[in-house]
């Protein structure tokens, strides 16, 4: 039976072999010649034959099996990892960490403070959980005050819910007729009033926000305008537009001019940076803008002023004064390279500053309040009462004298001396200088190409010339850093370090 099976198997294999051999001429291949003696041996010995056949089937089977086992294990491992990750996540979850503590705290409170608060309140309010630690120290009113602070931030809806919570919570027998509820109700009423006030403020803020946004829009539009003008004009006047067509001397000159201008711009920029008094405080800026508006602040203006100040501002006069003509003038100055024109380019800016100052002066009401905004040391103390007489003094201090503007320098100086006026102009100037510097740099880098319309002067183009050409050619060969010290190469290297190139007689 076995023999018969083997014979049929052999016949089957022979047939396969015959077919393959006839098609691919396998008998003449080197591999077959190599395997031939072994195959003959296999044919002669049935044991070998059996082993080889078994091996033929077993080896792939084992491989497949091993792979499947490993896959299963991987899958299990992944599952385990996921489980572990989930567990870790749960363990690290701060909510999970807090909850038991709060429960414990609540339990403790239940023993001590149950008569006052009841069990439900502690559970219901998440703010109280944070306050739990201090609860033993602070009084009820303090706690309520703190609660107020927490509840002020959420909207009115939140308060309503808290109100409902107060109503829903089980009231202890002592608290049922106690004054606590009254106080609480009073407090909540006050709270609501406060919120109404807040509503008003928020509405005001919203209005101011829109106006502020509008101002920003205007500014942006204006900036875009100036940029567009620059784009339009610069390529026409740009000496680098046809840089590659210029003579060498002209090219050199153009580069030199550009470099000079860049240096000058940098110097101006550094000069401006180095003058600490002239660098306006951003807070001042904002306050300045704020002052420029028609809004008034009550005498009882509280600590919220500092935050609200940013939103109460009116459209700043700066963009209004900076007309497109002036920006065009500045763009012209950028397009030209001569010194006088560079200096001239600064004039409109200074004039703009003057204009800004004037435009701000036209609103004298702004200095009726908040003298800190215009004081040199700008110490904003929101809680301190602002004396009613103070504004008179400040208005004197900040009386603008247009007669003093005689020259550009004096304008600049006077503008700087009056901080309230110069504040918006200084950062603008710095920005414009930076922009121009970046623009010049871009143009310098792109001098070998005619300038394409620049999307933004800040955008930097990758230089087209190859920097490798400027690099000094290497005169030494880099050797491997990890030469084993027991190798001949190491010794050769050592010798090469000791002796000079012409000292080769020793070899």
């Amino acid at each position, binding site marked *: 039976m076995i023999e018969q099976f083997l014979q049929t198997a052999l016949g089957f294999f022979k047939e396969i072999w015959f077919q393959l051999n006839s098609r691919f001429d396998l008998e003449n291949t080197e591999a077959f010649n190599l395997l031939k003696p072994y195959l003959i041996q296999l044919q002669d010995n049935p044991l070998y034959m059996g082993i080889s056949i078994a091996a033929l089937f077993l080896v792939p089977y084992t491989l497949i099996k091993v792979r499947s086992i490993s896959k299963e294990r991987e899958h299990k491992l992944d599952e385990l990892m996921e489980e572990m990750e989930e567990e870790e996540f749960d363990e690290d979850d701060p909510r999970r960490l807090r909850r038991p503590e709060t429960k414990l705290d609540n339990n403790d409170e239940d023993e001590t403070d149950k008569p006052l608060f009841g069990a439900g309140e502690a559970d219901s309010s998440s703010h109280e959980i944070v306050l739990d630690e201090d609860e033993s120290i602070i009084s009820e009113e303090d706690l309520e005050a703190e609660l107020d602070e927490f509840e002020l931030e959420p909207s009115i809806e939140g308060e309503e819910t808290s109100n409902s919570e107060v109503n829903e919570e089980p009231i202890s027998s002592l608290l049922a007729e106690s004054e606590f509820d009254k106080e609480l109700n009073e407090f909540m009423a006050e709270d609501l009033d406060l919120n109404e006030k807040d509503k008003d403020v928020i509405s005001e803020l919203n209005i101011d926000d829109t106006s502020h946004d509008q101002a920003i829009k205007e500014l942006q539009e204006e900036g875009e305008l100036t940029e567009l003008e620059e784009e339009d004009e610069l390529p026409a006047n740009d000496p680098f537009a046809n840089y590659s067509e210029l003579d060498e001397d002209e090219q050199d000159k153009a580069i030199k001019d550009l470099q000079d201008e860049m240096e000058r711009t940098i110097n101006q920029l550094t000069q401006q940076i180095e003058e600490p008094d002239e660098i306006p405080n951003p807070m001042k800026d904002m306050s300045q803008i704020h002052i420029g508006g028609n809004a008034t602040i009550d005498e009882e203006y509280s600590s919220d002023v500092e935050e609200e100040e940013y939103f109460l501002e009116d459209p700043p006069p700066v963009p209004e004064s900076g007309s497109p003509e002036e920006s065009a003038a500045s763009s012209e100055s950028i397009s030209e390279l001569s010194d006088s024109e560079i200096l001239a380019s600064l004039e409109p800016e200074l004039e703009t500053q003057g204009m800004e100052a004037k435009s701000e002066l036209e609103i004298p009401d702004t200095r009726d309040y908040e003298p800190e905004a215009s004081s040199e040391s700008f110490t904003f103390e929101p809680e301190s009462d602002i004396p009613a007489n103070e504004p008179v003094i400040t208005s004197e201090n900040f009386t603008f004298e247009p007669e003093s503007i005689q020259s550009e320098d004096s304008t600049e100086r006077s503008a700087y001396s009056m901080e309230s006026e110069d504040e918006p102009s200084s950062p603008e100037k710095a920005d414009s200088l930076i922009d121009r510097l970046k623009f010049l740099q871009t143009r310098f880098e792109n001098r070998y190409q005619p300038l394409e319309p620049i999307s933004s002067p800040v955008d930097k183009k990758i230089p087209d010339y190859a920097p490798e050409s400027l690099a000094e050619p290497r005169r030494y060969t880099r050797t491997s850093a990890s030469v084993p*010290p*027991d190798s001949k190469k*190491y010794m050769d*290297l*050592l*010798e090469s*370090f*000791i002796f000079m190139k012409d000292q080769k007689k020793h070899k």
Partner: protein
Amino acid sequence: MTNPINIIAVGGGKGGIGKSVVCTNLAAGMALSGQKVILMDTDFGASNLHALLGITNPAHGFQDFFNAEITDPRTLLLDTGISNLKFVSGAGDNPGSANIDSEKIGTIISFIKKLEADTILLDLGPGTNYNVIDFFNISTQGVVMTTPEMTSIMKTFSFIRSALFRRISLAFQDFPEIQRVVDHSNPNDADMESYTTGLLRSKFAEQFPDQADRLETLIQDFTPGLVVNRVRNRKDLMAGENLLKLVKKFLEIEVTYLGYIIESDRVRDSIDDMIPFLIKDPQSKPSENLQQIIGALTNTDLQFVKRDGRIFVSKQVRLSSGWEV
């Protein structure tokens, strides 16, 4: 009959390879083994040996040679707190004091040679200038140090070559023609072609055949010892072997391999503590390495043991061949 003073100079071309530390510990070890030792800081201009010994504001030093006449040279010898060990400081070095003239160097050398001690250890400064090399060449046993870094090996090779050529130069001081070949300090008036011993030999054979034997003797007598410091692994030890090969190949001299000292934080700690590591921790690995080096230098087998804060030294003198079992 008095034994000649054993002068051991510890040098090496590169700075910061541990010359001073090793020199201090060698001196301490030799002193503890019973020898009268004088340790000298000849690193003028950058001396720091007194700091390693914890001697603050040394009262005297080599600066006395430069500032005033010394009435009694013995005043220069400072106590170190280690029995049998005296110290001559180089502290108080003023700016530029490293550039002392050869006359002063000669004075110091004659002073050293007059001292009464079993062993004088000279801690040399880095570099290969003649002020350093001349101190090295007065030694009866020169010890050159290196670390496994290639730069250190290069500098140590340069140091050995400079010392050898200086030695030859001083030996042939009366022969200006030979000076041209040997002394390359003035490149305009020197024969720069002889930068290895082989080239020097051929030059001598060609131009000064009658002095060739003397040259040969000088070369043969020059047998410095080598210590490889800051060894971290077996590969680092190869650095020492490479240096020996290099010296053998280009200078054709026999450098005695004295041993190595492993890199250890204990050494660094001992510097911070201002106590030689051999005394602080005599059973540590660097101390064992150092004991082997002392043994190679003094032909003894030393073993230091610290018990209850006291150091016990067992010393076995190695017998010459013929007595060995």
